[in-house]
């Protein structure tokens, strides 16, 4: 594989399509700058600021951009809020559509056949594999992102976190809780 990739990169570079230095910057961006900590900041802000929360639920693209997170694979954002009655979960059954601007690159399982096939049909079974068991009365709302709209789950703020600062709250927000396959961490 290594050789195949290098061969293609060399050819595309020689033909003038690719600047290898740009590839380095891209990789660094998704390894160090654009990842689920971005989304965690959005969630923590929404937990602390009711006005921001309303804006996020009304126009997620703009509300998220106001924190500096915008662009590629986040051009058309929708935030969906977990409540006492509804738990949201996101999947892309057709490929691997994922909100890169707030969560970075998708984990392998999100792109895998087992998750993509089962999330729509057996969400409780999938959640169980993630260690999440929801009350039977709670509705599970599955968002199959089949177009260019990207979904961010706004999880419920854990109880007992009233005293925490926004950045302390952000540390409780896991990547999976923003996909809907997990819940935020409880405060320590």
């Amino acid at each position, binding site marked *: 594989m290594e050789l195949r990739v290098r061969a293609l990169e060399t050819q595309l570079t020689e033909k003038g399509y690719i600047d290898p230095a740009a590839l380095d910057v891209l990789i660094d961006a998704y390894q160090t700058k654009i990842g689920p900590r971005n989304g965690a900041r959005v969630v923590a802000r929404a937990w602390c600021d009711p006005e921001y929360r309303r804006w996020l639920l009304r126009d997620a693209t703009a509300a998220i951009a106001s924190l500096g997170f915008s662009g590629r694979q986040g051009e058309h954002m929708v935030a969906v809020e977990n409540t006492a009655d509804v738990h949201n979960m996101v999947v892309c059954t057709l490929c*691997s559509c994922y909100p890169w601007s707030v969560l970075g690159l998708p984990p392998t399982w999100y792109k895998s056949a087992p998750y993509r096939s089962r999330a729509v*049909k057996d969400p409780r079974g999938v959640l169980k594999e993630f260690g999440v068991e929801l009350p039977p009365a709670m509705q599970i709302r599955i968002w199959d992102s089949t177009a260019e709209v990207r979904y961010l789950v706004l999880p419920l703020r854990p109880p007992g976190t009233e005293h925490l600062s926004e950045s302390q709250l952000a540390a409780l927000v896991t990547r999976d809780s923003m996909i809907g396959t997990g819940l935020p961490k409880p405060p320590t």
Partner: protein
Amino acid sequence: MSYRSRADLGGQDVRGVIVMETEGDLFHAPWEPRVMALVVAMGPTGLSNIDMNRATRETLPNYRELSYYEIWLAALEKLALQNGVLSESPPEPKQVLHADSVMAAIKKGTSVSRPAARPARFSIGDRVHTAEHASQHHTRLPAYARGKLGVIEKIHGAHVFPDTNAHGMGEAPQWLYTVAFAEKELWGDAKPLQGSIISIDAFEPYLEPA
């Protein structure tokens, strides 16, 4: 010629478990980040678009045997050949992504919103039937949601239409809706009840009034 997507997995019986990953665990071989970056960097050249990329990936005969970045690589190689990139007279790139413009390009993204040619046919709360027949081209209507009764839940404006854009037939913008389905409508009574509602984002041509 028949078109067959091997990527349309929703509701299918697939063996295998979901393998958890910690947050920073992005790549599993040194070549994977390179492939990710190559695919992203080829975007500005304008040689193909996201829908062509998806169509190329989902029709790879061995799609189900490959890992995700292997799929991306195989499709990139195939498109490079198809587009004459490796030929004696390769097409001019529209733009080349350079290191100093990467962050700006990421931040800007590529919006698929377009002005609508006509008013939306459906309103929130309308009941709709999804198209019944399997498509003979790239489409974003999953098989499990074909021929089903749903309700319009959100209207997203007019977006580039993948069904035409994937085949070089233009953007032909169409209204895009979130359509929600009861689990019973999709899966019948066979499964233990999940207490779930499932939605897809569907383009107007996929929908008829119910």
